[in-house]
């Protein structure tokens, strides 16, 4: 019983490895659609800059989107 369960484990892990390699991952050469401008989170650079500026200087909140700073609103 132990032997059979070990065999099943080995077979399933090999099978899953092959699935992960060939079926699930989007290969680098298949990323044409993902590289399109519509897929970008920053579709409007001007709007993004304005929003970041508002967060940075008026809301005194900061993080994730740029360089380091204290959030004092003094810039």
């Amino acid at each position, binding site marked *: 019983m132990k032997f059979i369960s070990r065999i099943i484990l080995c*077979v399933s892990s090999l099978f899953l490895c092959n699935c992960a390699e060939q079926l699930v991952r989007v*290969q680098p*050469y298949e990323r044409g659609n993902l590289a399109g401008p519509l897929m970008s989170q920053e579709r409007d650079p001007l709007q993004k800059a304005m929003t970041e500026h508002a967060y940075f200087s008026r809301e005194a909140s900061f993080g994730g989107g740029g360089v380091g700073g204290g959030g004092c609103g003094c810039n």
Partner: protein
Amino acid sequence: MISVKKQMNQNQNTILIMKNIIRTIMLGLVSMTLASAAPSVGQAMPKLSGMLPGAAIPNTAGKVVLVDFWASWCGPCKASFPCFNRLHQKYAGKGLVIVGIGVDEDPAKYQAFVAKQQVAFALAHDAKHKAAAFFAPSTMPTSYLVDRKGIIRYIHSGFKGAKTEAEYAKQIEELLAK
């Protein structure tokens, strides 16, 4: 007594059959795993004409070959084209062949990109990703530098401007000298 013996024989037969089936499955899976391995340094370069039927692949026998996988949607690929043009102008006479394989699925995008670039070297379109699936490039662009004997000697992932160009020039000169 006889029925017990029969039962034991049947059990042994079943175990043997099971073992054979498991062995076959394991062999199949291992071969699948090995078959999916991408070409690496030291391996022979496969024939590109077989993977890209209809493409005008230049004669590469006895030459140093640079095979580059690119796409129109890839910024570094676009940046690498002037570099390949310079390398082609400098080393084509000495025995370098550059083959750029475009992996765009849309032929119109491929054609539009090629029309914009002034390409001096050979190009091929791998719309069905037959060659790309075989080489499994880790990033875009990826290029393979092959020596005169047809062995892959260097693999470049990505393009980092002048630094990569200097590496190409050094490696090409080394392979041309052999």
